[in-house]
């Protein structure tokens, strides 16, 4: 066996390189650029946007270099060797025995997400150059966008939970600024506040989770690994060590998952995501493809061992993550059917796809879920930017599909083509990227024994195909309507028309700065799936090789015999009597585990064909219905929801978003805020005022006594006496005040001389 040989053999050190060692520069560059844009942006020829684009390009180059060197590092390792992440950390601040570090943790997962974030951010910034041209807060927009990307990048490569939290919160703040970019309109600032507060609700969970993990893990990690309890590496090893108390780790995992629910727009905190469409389209694109909403999924993927142990992933009967993911897939896909706003359709689609990622993570399909983050970023960014391109050049800043779009495929060929490619990728049609990731998730969920959830996934795939077909039909087919037919309908401006100079033109294709990102993204939407193309065999599964952490026990010579040298040699070894690693299933015996052992489903064309058939069925059904409903105006279908009562109820239920917004704003906020304020009022009136009144009465009586006895007799008597005394002294001393400086000087010197004499006498 190789493994037995490996036990004695000291393996060669892993390859590393400049880009891996200095990956911490990736978020630092946008952060510096943010400061520069704020300070001097307005005075630059392109109003600061060039700094934003340049910083994102620099980050992109660095992350591409890091990705390349990470692949080399993986290749330099043997088959069964754990590929050590490149970790560098510095002490940030110390307080009362707590050591808060700052540093980088570069492994496959962070490399993938770093690259995606930097890539999408670069394209979105280039797109924004044109889309926001002439906007009144152009410079601030680019500043916030750059800091936003910087926050995400910092979060992705954080080596400890404190830095993770920092990046997470920076993103929350920037999303607030960006969604409310056009805050003059009340709806926009409300949407920004809603996004901020909803995410904050979840953030409480993150704080609780981090603190719990710290206090639970710190002793173990300090003793065994010499790491702080905030360190992601330490927490991962601790979770799989068999050490943690099952209740503690479960509560911590649930707390962290609540943060994920808030950030990633999972049910029941998904309501902020569609409202976040109030921001400019590039923001929606960035928020909903690679950053922000992916952060929640990333949190679960990053601390996977904690969730694996805490929530009993791979246990029978499913777990919290799976349930939330499955519910999210279905309810948000259903909501996408009743939206008229193209961006809202895409928003609900994002929520639904995030549900897939959560479902995958919950079901032990870690790699497919991470791969879905990767592919989804490309096609969803492309779809959002495509919607922006339509509103920018064809429909007078309107996003209403029913009123202002239709028949645009002829006038916008590039936007149309890229849209179709991305839609097919989103639906998961075979050669497009979505197929390789989404189908893998569904397949693995079934493979791990969760058949019910697999069916939910397939239903979701059907619904995805159907609502995307509806949106495509309404936008690009049929007769042009409203603004895209050339009618000037200024009252339909959803978007801020700060650059209305071209509103006299009819619909036309957008400029190169907008179409170039679209084309690049659509190529990736088409091709990025090949990085982990399971149907073509093992050799195509690059992502699996590069990204998935290997579930082997790691014996760290540095800590095996107490504090050793900094040279780290890893010897992967099999436990006595077992030929395979036991990571995640039982306690590691001689080393530590950093990742649980996960199975991968064998690809079968029969299963793929089934899901393919479901997707095509969804498209065809939706196409026929859309044609009958929107073009032919078929009498049997039009107004069906008004005529059939039960359908009407269902429709109203969907249009009102399951009344969740009402529940939150009217019921919860009211029931919490109103009793609190009335109770506070009562407390104020009765308790506080009562106390104040009795205190003041008491004080008045006491002060009356004090006035009579102390003030009049003692104080006044003293004052009067001292005044009399002073007066007599003053009269006696009057002659010395001659007003002559010389005399004063003489007095001064003689006094000093007398004092000196006294001093000398005393000292001798």
């Amino acid at each position: 066996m190789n493994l037995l040989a490996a036990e004695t053999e000291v393996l060669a050190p892993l390859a590393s390189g400049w880009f891996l060692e200095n990956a911490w520069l990736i978020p630092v560059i946008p952060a510096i650029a943010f400061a520069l844009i704020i300070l001097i942006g307005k005075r630059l020829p392109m109003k600061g946007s060039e700094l934003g684009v340049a910083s994102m390009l620099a980050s992109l180059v660095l992350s591409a270099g890091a990705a390349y060197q990470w692949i080399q590092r993986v290749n330099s390792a043997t088959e069964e060797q754990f590929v050590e992440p490149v970790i560098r950390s510095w002490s940030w601040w110390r307080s009362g025995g707590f050591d808060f570090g700052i540093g980088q943790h570069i492994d496959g997962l962070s490399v993938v997400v770093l690259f995606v974030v930097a890539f999408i951010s670069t394209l979105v910034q280039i797109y924004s150059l044109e889309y926001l041209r002439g906007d009144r807060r152009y410079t601030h927009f680019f500043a916030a966008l750059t800091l936003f990307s910087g926050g995400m990048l910092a979060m992705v490569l954080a080596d400890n939970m404190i830095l993770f939290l920092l990046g997470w919160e920076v993103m929350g703040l920037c999303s607030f600024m960006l969604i409310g970019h056009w805050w003059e309109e009340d709806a926009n600032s409300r949407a920004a506040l809603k996004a901020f507060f909803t995410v904050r609700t979840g953030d409480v969970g993150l704080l609780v989770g981090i603190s719990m993990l710290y206090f639970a893990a710190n002793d173990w990690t300090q003793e065994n690994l010499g790491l702080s309890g905030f360190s992601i590496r330490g927490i991962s090893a601790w979770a799989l060590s068999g050490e943690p108390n099952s209740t503690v780790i479960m509560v911590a995992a649930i707390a962290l998952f609540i943060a994920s629910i808030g950030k990633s727009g999972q049910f029941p905190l998904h309501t902020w995501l569609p409202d976040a469409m109030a921001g400019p389209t590039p923001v929606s694109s960035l928020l909903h493809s690679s950053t922000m909403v992916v952060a929640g999924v990333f949190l679960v993927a990053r601390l996977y061992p904690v969730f694996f142990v805490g929530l009993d992933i791979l246990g029978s009967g499913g777990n919290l993550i799976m349930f939330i993911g499955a519910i999210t897939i279905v309810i948000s896909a259903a909501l996408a059917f009743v939206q008229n706003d193209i961006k809202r359709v895409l928003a609900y689609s994002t929520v639904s796809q995030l549900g897939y990622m959560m479902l995958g993570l919950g079901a032990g399909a870690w790699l497919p879920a991470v791969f879905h983050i990767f592919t989804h970023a490309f096609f969803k960014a492309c779809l959002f930017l495509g919607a922006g391109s339509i509103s920018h050049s064809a429909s007078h800043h309107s996003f209403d599909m029913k009123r202002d779009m239709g028949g645009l495929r002829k006038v916008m060929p590039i936007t149309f083509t890229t849209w179709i490619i991305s839609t097919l990728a989103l639906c998961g049609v075979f050669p497009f990227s979505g197929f390789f990731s989404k189908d893998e998730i569904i397949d693995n969920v079934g493979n791990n024994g969760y058949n019910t959830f697999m069916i939910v996934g397939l239903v979701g795939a059907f619904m995805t195909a159907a609502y995307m077909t509806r949106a495509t039909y309404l936008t690009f087919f049929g007769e042009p309507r409203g603004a895209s037919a050339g009618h000037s309908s200024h009252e339909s401006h959803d978007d801020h028309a700060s650059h209305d100079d071209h509103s006299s033109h009819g619909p036309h294709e957008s400029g190169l700065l907008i179409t170039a990102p679209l084309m690049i993204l659509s190529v990736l939407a088409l091709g990025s799936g090949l990085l982990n193309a399971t149907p073509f065999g093992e050799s195509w599964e690059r992502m699996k090789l590069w990204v998935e952490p290997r579930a082997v026990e790691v014996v760290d010579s540095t800590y095996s015999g107490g504090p050793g040298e900094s040279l780290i040699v890893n010897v992967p070894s099999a436990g006595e009597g077992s030929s395979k690693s036991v990571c995640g299933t039982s306690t590691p015996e001689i080393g530590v585990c950093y990742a649980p052992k996960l199975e991968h489903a064998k690809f079968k064309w029969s299963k793929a064909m089934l899901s393919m058939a479901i997707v095509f069925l969804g498209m065809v059904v939706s196409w026929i219905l859309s044609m009958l409903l929107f073009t032919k105006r078929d009498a049997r279908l039009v107004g069906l929801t008004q005529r059939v009562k039960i359908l009407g109820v269902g429709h109203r239920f969907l249009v009102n978003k399951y009344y969740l917004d009402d529940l939150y704003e009217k019921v919860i906020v009211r029931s919490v805020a109103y009793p609190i304020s009335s109770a506070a009022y009562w407390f104020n009136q009765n308790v506080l005022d009562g106390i104040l009144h009795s205190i003041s009465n008491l004080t008045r009586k006491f002060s009356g006594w004090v006035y009579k006895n102390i003030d009049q007799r003692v104080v006044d008597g003293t004052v009067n006496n001292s005044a009399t005394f002073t007066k007599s002294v003053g009269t006696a001393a009057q002659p010395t005040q001659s007003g002559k400086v010389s005399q004063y000087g003489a007095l001064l010197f003689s006094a000093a001389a007398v004092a000196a004499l006294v001093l000398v006498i005393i000292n001798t």
Partner: protein
Amino acid sequence: MFVNQFLFLAAVLFCIGVYGVIARKNAVLMLMSIELILNSVNINLLTFAMRNGSTDGHVFALYIIAVAAAEVGVGLGLVLLVYRNKKTISVDELSEMRG
């Protein structure tokens, strides 16, 4: 080193200075006398610094020279203003501080 001689010189200068401040009527001469007092102190400081082999006294002396320069500037400015208003700099005439 004869410390006594330096201390004696300083004491003499100090007395001359005090005499000048008290007896002179002219404000400018009073300022000059104050300078004499300050410099006698400087001599004292340097003497003891030399005796103790430390440089603290030198540092203080330098500070005092700097402060004295500023003080003379302010003092002469005051004298100029007094002259402009009263057409005299005789301190006997300036008895407005009388109580």
